[in-house]
């Protein structure tokens, strides 16, 4: 395992870069996903179509294809930026579709009777939404949204594989190929550092689920 311990600083840098990819993707995909979900559940047909189109496209296309499209396609129409930007952009577009579906499933899981009951005790639309529908919807959303986010953390490895230098995945690949270090210890090192992202995230999620989630 010495290749790992001798290069711990590189692994640590890679870990931090991976975390920053995750963070930017989180900041981008959550609001975008909620916005698309808003389109899908709105009463305006063209917005529903747009939402459906978005989700169908990005859910059924591999993340790799989205990334290739961003990095090689966008410069063709004059959008030039770093691989880091294109990587995060691809991850945001892809993840937003899954965030949208998680949020939408939460809203749909609230039974229509709840809104009817809210109206019948004299709440208006905004009050019903604020006090009755949204609190329930948000709590059902916690488990699926959490799975989406953990999947996104893991997908940040694809962004690294894609050529964003310096993240955890590319650190491992560089140590293997450029410096000719053995693959197995380096692989184990990379794996352990990824588990340092996903296992705590999973644990936090479970605690959160136990606290707020309701099953229906």
């Amino acid at each position, binding site marked *: 395992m010495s290749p790992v311990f001798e290069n711990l600083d590189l692994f640590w840098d890679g870990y931090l870069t991976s975390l920053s990819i995750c963070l930017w993707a989180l900041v981008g995909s959550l609001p975008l996903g909620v916005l698309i979900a808003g389109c899908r559940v709105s009463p305006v047909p063209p917005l529903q179509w747009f939402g459906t189109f978005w989700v*169908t496209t990005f859910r059924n296309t591999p993340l790799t294809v989205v990334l*290739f499209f961003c990095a090689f396609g966008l410069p*063709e129409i004059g959008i030039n930026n770093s691989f880091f930007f294109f990587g995060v952009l691809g991850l945001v577009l892809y993840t937003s579709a899954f965030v949208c579906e998680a949020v939408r499933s939460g809203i749909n899981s609230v039974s229509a009777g709840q809104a009817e009951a809210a109206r019948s005790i004299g709440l208006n639309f905004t009050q019903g939404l604020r006090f009755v529908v949204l609190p329930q919807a948000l709590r059902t959303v916690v488990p699926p949204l959490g799975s989406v986010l953990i999947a996104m953390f893991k997908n940040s490895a694809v962004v690294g594989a894609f050529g964003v230098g310096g993240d955890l995945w590319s650190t491992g690949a560089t140590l293997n190929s450029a410096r000719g270090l053995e693959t197995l210890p380096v692989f184990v090192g990379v794996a352990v550092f990824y*588990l340092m992202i996903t296992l705590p995230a999973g644990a936090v999620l479970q605690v959160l689920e136990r606290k707020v989630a309701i099953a229906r």
Partner: protein
Amino acid sequence: MSQQTVLYDAQGPRARRRTAIGTVIAVLVLAGLAYVVIDRLIERNQFSMEKWGPLIDPSNEAFDAVWRLLGEGVVNTLRAAAIAMLLSVVLGTLIAVARLSAGRAGRIPLIGLVELFRGLPVVVLVYFGVRVLPDVGVDLRELPGGQELWGLVIGLTAYNMVIFAEVVRAGVASLPKGQREAALATGLTNGQTMRIVLLPQAFRVMLPAIISQLIVVLKDTSLVTFIANYDELLSQGESIRRNLDNPIQTFIVIALMYITINYLLGRLAQYIQRRQARASARVAEVTDAGANVPVGGGA
């Protein structure tokens, strides 16, 4: 709209007027966005036959070669996905059964296995299959399909088998308790109960989840593009792009191919789920009716 949503009721005249205004605004905004994109594409000459010809014009000299590559890509993608899927279902079922029948101590390593493979990015596991295994002396070149196919399949299987293990476990857990009790009461052993009574029912419940996961596996085959030279759909697209310098067009066509296959699979999963929901609703109705019949009394 026939589907009732919790957010709004059947619309009255005022709400309908607001929706109509919203529709007009939405159409204007979306059309504006589309105009900006299309205008930019035209300006950059992205609709030229020079770029699209090899993909859509059969008389183009590159057309045959391009579609031969894409065809091979689809076949290779489907092959890797199908093998990985089959292996994951089989191994996942074994892990689930082992976990369900093992004692407390036996369960711990299995839980560790599941958590380990679930916590790793699938691209790291594909890397393990394709790069690490040969380095530690596992020779896959002799197998039909070669090193790359089996490395990819092993990576995808390692990731997906533990997902299936969880799906199978949830499927068995979702069955009514009486199923197991009745099977044991007729004299079946634990193993027979699992094999003859519980697993077949669990698989029926899980079929939609299995098909949905197939979509994930299909998409994940493309990860090998970063790691090795297995000619699946995306790798073929990459060689087309490098030769013809038409990334936008090539990746749109590739994306459409993935979307078509995966959309159909998604619809199949939905269809099966709905059919099962109807079937179990019927069962529920029957039992509801049964509960109303006075126990032990004739009419």
